């Protein structure tokens, strides 16, 4: 038992260290310690299921121990910036005022192609448009465009807002989302009326989107593949 606990701690620390050593490229959306916990826990969970001769506690104890270490790590990271930097690393600036920091790219072992790909994922096609771009500790790229390259908003253009609410789904796959209807000041009667205007029962609506104005988008369910079933906007 003692052996199991110390091995669990050692393996956890070793895998975490290895992940930190491998750098941000190995990570997805998870923080290093979260990824390690996820990997180990998923493996541990299968041990007792696969091997009958192994007692259930041989999986449960390391599993809870890892969860405990993860919680302890997050609590320590919350209280100590130094610990947080040690475990999760620090965000790294890769573009500043349109200038790519090649030293940072080398340090992160990111190629220019990787950076451009990540920028394209953020709808940025020219690094000169970027005021500030950082590789976060979970390996994702965050981008702030230069103010003059930002997409203008209605407020920037000084235009009046036509709708106060966001466009929400009212019906999805024939299922009525009553909360969304109510939030946009509509009710079941409006829904029935709208469906009737398209000569459709509500359960035959694939998607109905709308907001607090009279504008909406309705798409009816297609009975057969290739059948024309597109609805019209009201």
């Amino acid at each position, binding site marked *: *038992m*003692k*052996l199991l*606990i*110390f*091995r669990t701690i*050692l393996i956890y620390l070793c895998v975490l260290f290895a992940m930190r050593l491998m750098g941000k490229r190995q990570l997805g959306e998870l923080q290093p310690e979260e990824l390690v916990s996820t990997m180990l826990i998923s493996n541990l969970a299968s041990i007792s299921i696969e091997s009958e*001769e*192994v*007692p*259930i*506690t*041989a999986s449960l*104890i390391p599993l*809870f*121990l890892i*969860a*405990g270490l993860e*919680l*302890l790590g997050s*609590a320590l990271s919350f209280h100590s910036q130094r610990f947080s930097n040690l475990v999760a690393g620090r965000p790294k600036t890769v573009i500043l005022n349109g200038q790519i920091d090649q030293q940072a790219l080398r340090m992160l072992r990111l190629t220019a192609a990787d950076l451009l790909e990540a920028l394209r994922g953020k709808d940025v096609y020219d690094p000169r448009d970027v005021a500030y771009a950082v590789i976060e500790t979970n390996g994702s790229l965050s981008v702030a465009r230069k103010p003059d390259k930002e997409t203008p908003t209605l407020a920037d253009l000084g235009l009046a807002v036509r709708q106060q609410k966001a466009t929400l789904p009212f019906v999805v796959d024939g299922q009525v989302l009553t909360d969304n209807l109510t939030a946009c000041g509509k009710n079941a009667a409006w829904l029935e009326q709208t469906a009737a205007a398209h000569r459709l029962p509500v359960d035959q609506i694939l998607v109905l989107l709308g907001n607090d104005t009279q504008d909406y988008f309705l798409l009816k369910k297609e009975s057969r593949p290739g059948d024309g079933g597109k609805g019209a906007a009201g």
Partner: protein
Amino acid sequence: MKRIWVCLALMAGILLLTGYSTRRVRLFADQLSFQLETAAEALHQDDVPAARQAIRQGARLCGQMRRESVLYLRTGDFIELEASLQAAGSHLDEGAQEEALGELGRASVQVENIDWLTRRWL
């Protein structure tokens, strides 16, 4: 904060179970070593009934340990030990004392290994 307390409670539970199981295995190893030594000594003095009694007692301890610790210990070692002792008992029944001594020696090594496992840290 509630999650941290749950985590601490789980840790405390795990440590308690660790201490209990380690103590239990060491106690078992001590008791079994004693029975094996008794049996071997009895065989050297040609006291077959006393040896048989000690071997039976040892096998009973193994069976008890195997059944009671199934939830928190790997029982493979206890099964193997019990099999060795049963074999030693059978050899005694057939009057094969040398073979019985061999099985007892094998069982002693296994007990020593079990005891050593509880003292390892990694």
